Each structure stands twice: as structure tokens, then as C-alpha cells.
């Protein structure tokens, strides 16, 4: 990582009372594949659209390739590729026509046929756009985002709604882009996608970054085990990165059976769910609900 492709400091975006982005600090290095992971409504797309120059921020500092995207000149656009969350359903151009036109807007564009092959649309190159499947349209969107040979590519929820097979193929496509040295920022609400593709993952919930780590680092957090048992009639629970030592101590204090002993290793998914769960609860603390009371929906 030579220097930062993107720096974000104290970013806020408010829609009335809703704080979609609530104080975000982040630095994404040049050449990095970075995943912004979080549930729907967490603020991923709002953040990315601010970085893409489509939305105005409420406050904070943002620099993308050394430029404030809110006031970016058109030359900046030749360095940034964008794949939106939405796909055009009513385009009139074939895949080849769309790629050829788009390539003509960039000073050092990729070859159209090479790009068609890279996104797996060679056979559909001249097909009527209406005959493309959802997955093929998304692949065309990737092609359109990268054909200008951008230094930085944004992929906003590229695989939402895909079946597992299509998602795997799509991952291979993104992997192949990594070789070009461009910086890739993708948003997703699939943990396995971020885990598979990204050098680093930023987990975002309720407009805040709740974790920033490599996939391996997040997995290490998952190595913490939860040890539960019952002692003197009271349930006890401890989370530890050294469950064996804890057990040894426990066994030393107990002669016979330890009552209701349990050792559980949370999965990566458990870590993720706990992180976003904590953040969502913190976000709702303005109107605290009694957690001991079952909700109306649950009892109805």
C-alpha cells in the first residue's frame, strides 16, 4: 500500500432525523480490495455514493484519488469506474454497443472484445438487451465499470439476488480484476463474499464502522470461545481466547461433573452478527425498550 486511494474523516450524512452515516473514519489504500460489509440500511450505499460523487455529505472530509468527489471535474471520472446498485432493465444497446460507446469516453480504454470475454458475454455480445438474464446484466455492468481502465472501481452490492452458482462465477470475475492493480471498493451484505474477495473488511452498522480488519483478523476474533456452565445453581458464561486454561481451572474446583458444561466456538458469522447487533442496539438506545419484555409481535 503506497498511499491512500480514499480517505474519509468524520463523515456524516443526515436525512432529517435519520443519521444514515454517523461519523465515519476510514482509509483505503491504493491497490487494495476493500469490502464495506453491513446489513441493509447500514449506510453502505450512502457512503459509497458520497465517494462516487452522487450524493452530498452533511459534514466531514472526503478525498477520493486526491479529489473531493463533490466537486470533481470530468477528468476525475476517467479514473473512477462505477457499478451502481441498480441495473438498467430497459437499455436499448447490446452488450457490444454499450461497451464500445463507453470505451470511447476514456483515454486508455480496454479492448471491447477482451472485456466481453472477461465478463463472459462473448456469446451474448450482439443479443437483444432484453434477452440478458439478471446475472448477465450485472456482468455487463462490471464490464462498463472497468472498460475505461479506472484506477478505482466501485461495486455497489454486485451480487444481490444471485444464486450461489452465479455468485461464485462473479467472484472469479472480480478476482481477475485484482491483477490489474486497481483499487476495488465493494459493498455487500454477504459475509462470505467479503471474506472471499477482500483484503480488508469494514463492517458498518447504523452508520458507524464497528470493525475494520482483514478476513483473517476477523476470523481470529471468532477463535474466542464461549464457555458456559452452572455453578451453585447460577448459570455462568465466560468468553475467552484460552478455553483450555479456563477448563483446567474449572475442573480443579469441581470434584465431579461440572453442571451443564458447554464450550462453543462462534463462527465468523456469529462475530459479524454480534458486531452489527451491538451497533444496532446502541443506535436504538434513544428509545430504550425493555429487553426482558417479549415484543407484541412475538406473543401475538
Amino acid at each position, binding site marked *: 500500500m503506497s498511499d491512500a486511494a480514499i480517505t474519509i474523516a468524520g463523515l456524516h450524512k443526515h436525512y432529517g432525523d435519520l443519521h444514515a452515516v454517523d461519523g465515519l473514519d476510514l482509509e483505503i489504500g491504493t491497490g487494495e480490495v476493500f469490502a464495506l460489509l453491513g446489513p441493509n440500511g447500514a449506510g453502505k450505499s450512502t457512503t459509497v455514493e458520497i465517494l462516487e460523487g452522487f450524493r452530498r455529505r452533511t459534514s466531514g472530509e472526503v478525498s477520493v484519488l486526491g479529489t473531493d468527489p463533490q466537486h470533481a471535474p470530468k477528468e476525475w471520472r476517467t479514473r473512477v469506474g462505477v457499478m451502481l446498485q441498480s441495473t438498467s432493465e430497459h437499455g436499448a444497446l447490446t452488450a457490444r454497443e454499450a461497451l464500445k460507446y463507453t*470505451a470511447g469516453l476514456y*483515454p486508455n480504454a480496454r479492448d471491447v472484445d477482451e472485456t466481453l470475454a472477461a465478463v463472459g458475454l462473448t456469446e451474448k455480445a450482439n443479443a437483444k438487451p432484453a434477452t440478458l438474464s439478471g446475472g448477465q446484466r450485472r456482468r455487463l455492468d462490471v464490464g462498463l465499470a472497468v472498460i475505461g481502465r479506472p484506477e478505482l472501481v466501485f461495486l455497489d452490492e454486485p451480487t444481490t439476488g444471485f444464486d450461489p452458482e452465479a455468485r461464485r462465477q462473479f467472484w472469479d470475475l472480480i478476482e481477475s480484476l485484482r491483477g490489474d492493480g486497481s483499487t476495488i471498493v465493494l459493498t455487500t451484505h454477504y459475509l462470505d463474499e467479503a471474506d472471499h474477495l477482500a483484503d480488508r473488511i469494514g463492517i458498518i452498522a447504523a452508520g458507524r464502522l464497528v470493525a475494520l480488519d482483514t478476513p483473517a483478523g476477523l476470523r481470529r476474533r471468532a477463535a474466542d470461545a464461549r464457555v458456559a456452565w452452572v455453578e451453585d445453581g447460577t448459570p455462568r458464561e465466560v468468553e475467552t481466547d484460552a478455553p483450555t486454561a479456563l477448563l483446567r481451572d474449572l475442573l480443579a474446583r469441581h470434584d465431579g461433573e461440572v453442571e451443564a458444561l458447554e464450550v462453543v466456538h462462534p463462527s465468523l458469522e456469529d462475530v459479524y452478527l454480534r458486531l452489527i447487533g451491538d451497533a444496532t442496539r446502541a443506535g436504538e438506545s434513544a428509545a430504550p425498550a425493555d429487553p426482558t419484555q417479549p415484543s407484541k409481535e412475538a406473543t401475538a
Partner: protein
Amino acid sequence: MTTTAPRASSTAPTWASMTRARIVVELKEFLRSREQMVFIFFFPVMLLTLFGAVFGDANIAPDVTFAQYFLPGMVASGILNTGFQSLAMSLAVDRDEDVLKRIHGTPLPQTAFFTAKIVQVLIVSVIQIALLIAIGVALYDAAMPSDAEHWWTFTWVFLLGTAASTTLGIATSSLLRNAKAGSAIITPVVLVLQFTSGVFLVYTEVPTFLQRFAEIFPLKWLAQGMRSVFLPEDFAMAEARGSWEHPATAIVLALWVVVGLFLAVRTFRWTRHDDN
């Protein structure tokens, strides 16, 4: 990648090359959209033949039939349909479906985008008008403009009318909350203008207060300007003020161009209303 072979596409794009490429895209999109083709080409031709067949023979002046009066009116409303109605609706749909946002995300200059839109409107309008004139000449003995003076009048009325319609169309697209609201709002507006501005009805037979109302808007002036091109010179006496009023026509249309341009520049947005 250390070695990149020089390729044809590595020449830097210019404003002209990008505008040309965008014009081709705009035309392809228009030609491949069945709705637009029907609305712009088939619908006016159908109206012209239908009204011509029903009311065409009635004389509204000694040597002017209603069909002949109706032709310049349809040419005028064709300019409004293409530049205003069709453009506003297609821009609203493109905004709703993030097509505009996607364009904004590329290096295409804004001026290139709008130039391409305007060229597309001009080309489509010319074809539409040629179709209408051909039918008028073939079926209703309408006379083609006979001299350079009439063609000059046709040209400036057409260009000013298209400029006013296009800028107002772009501005209106930004005011629409979404594409669905588009047809519900724009269609009645255009219909009211068509009925009061001397398109579907003879202008001088419309009640005076409606004439005053129609005088505010471009269509009345467009229609009158086109009548001065296609109807005999002495029909000017039958106009509301006994003359073709060319200076007033130029002034009103030019004012609308200025208003439209101001509104279009001030209100245009690449993203949906709920995006910010």
C-alpha cells in the same frame, strides 16, 4: 501489466468524438423504443388523417379547408410533442431508472449529453414534420412553401420552437417527482394547449379568454407561424389580429427559450428526488 501495446482506442476522446458517439446512442435508443416511435411518428399521422377525413372538407376561408388549416397546427404540435412531451417523459424515466446517474458517472461532458439530446430531437422532428407534410400534400391539397422567404420563416419558427420545447422539456423532467407522474401531468397540459392554441380547433373560434390564455404559451405562436408558411398569404387577414405577427412570434418564442434555459440549468438533476 508492464507492457501495454498501443491500441486504436488509446487516442484521447474529444468533445466532438464523444458528442458524435452519444448522438448515435440517442438515435438507437429512440429507434428501438416502440412507444416513442408510435407516439412520435404514428400518432400524429393518425390524427392528421382522422381529423382530415372527418372535418377536412369544411371550408374555414374561401380557399382554405380545415384539413389545410390543421396541417400547420399538427406540425407545430409535433415540435411540442417531440421536444417537450416526449423528451420530458423519457428524461424522467431515465432519471427514475438511474440511467442519468450512470451517464453522470462517466467522463461524458454535460454539454455533449445535452447537445446529443437536442440533435436527436431535431432529427426526429424533421422526419416527423416531413411525414406530416407529405400526407398533407398527398391527401389535402396542402401547398408546400413555394419560395425562400417561406422556407426561412419555416426554419426560424421551427428552430425557436424546438429550442423552447426542448429547454422546457428538460426543466419539466426535473420537476416531475417520478416518471409515473409524468404522463399524468404533461398529457393534460399539452392537450389543453392543443385545444386552445389553434391545433384541434380554429383559433379564432375559441372564446377570447382562452385565446388570451393560449397567447402566453409557445404553441399558439408556433401554430400561427407554421400557418404563415403553409396557408395562402391573404389568410393573414383571418388571423386573430389580422396579421401573421412574425415579430411577436419571434419575441414570445425567444422569451420561452430564455425561461426554459434558465429553468433547465437551475433544476436539472442526474439523480432521483429521493436520492438526496
